[in-house]
């Protein structure tokens, strides 16, 4: 999550980050899949921040958005599909 916060802070600053409502809901280290919550008004902002991540703990990495949903229940359903 540190990498995500850093990316948001780098691109939008503390003011922008404070408006995002960014929260980590769940992280499955085995699958490398995380569920992140953000306000619907800042989805694109967070998507851009995630796409801008090229390193995590100094190791080359990339984060891709698998799916976006309005509720966590629908999100889990979508991910099962």
């Amino acid at each position, binding site marked *: 999550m540190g990498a995500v916060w850093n990316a948001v802070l780098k691109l939008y600053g503390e003011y922008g980050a404070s408006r995002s409502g960014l929260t980590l809901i769940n992280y499955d280290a085995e699958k490398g899949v995380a569920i992140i919550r953000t306000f619907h008004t800042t989805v*694109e902002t967070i*998507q*851009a921040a*995630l*796409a801008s991540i*090229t390193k995590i703990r100094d190791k*080359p990495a*990339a984060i*891709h*958005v698998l799916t976006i949903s309005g509720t966590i229940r629908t999100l889990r359903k979508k991910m099962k599909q």
Partner: protein
Amino acid sequence: MKKTYADLHLRPNLKDPEQVARMIRKASELGYRLIAISLPSNFPEEKIQQLRNICNEAKVDFASRVDLRPQTSKGLINSLRKLRRRFEIISVMCESKRVARQAAKDRRVDLLNFPSTSFRRRFFDKAEAELASKSLASFEIDMKPLLILEGPTRIRLLSSLRREVAIAQAFHIPIAISSGATSELLMRKPRELAALTSLFDLDKTSAVEAVSRNPVAITKRNREKLGSNFVAPGIRIIRKGKDC
């Protein structure tokens, strides 16, 4: 209707066939249905066919592309004369004002690209846009520099892109967003590239078009032109023989 997403600027190391294949497969996984790989001008036809075969296996359409970096406008004209019928997409990296102006007005140029870190050599101004609006050239933005640059250099790049995108939109010049990726880790999904464009104030609809409709239109137009039935824009042979 489902959108066809395209990344017209993949730059794998062509000496490493494994990496090329990995990047093609990755593009397919990320949702692209059309990709173009930047090739040297003397790249043999057999190798282009090999790339096509790999793309077919990965269920991605392949377009051949050459990046020209001419020093003079005369050099650009000569290269275009030699290469236009060999490659489906021609991009010009405009490193001088004269080359930029010539590229903008030449109908054989598909994409105008500018150096990402030499801000004084980004010649996409209103004069350039006016010339480009009368030809067929699109304004190409590679996202790789946005990902790898940091601090003041990225800030300056964003500032330049914001200005240039506004000019391109004012003159109705199509914008093509490409990854410019040299490795799989620098490749992003089409919607992620579209999200990144919000950093330089490109609206969502235009951003999605820049990764789908615009690059697909360039490829389609050029394939028609390179086809044996093409005569002139709007004129093509539909039937041959005695009964015509």
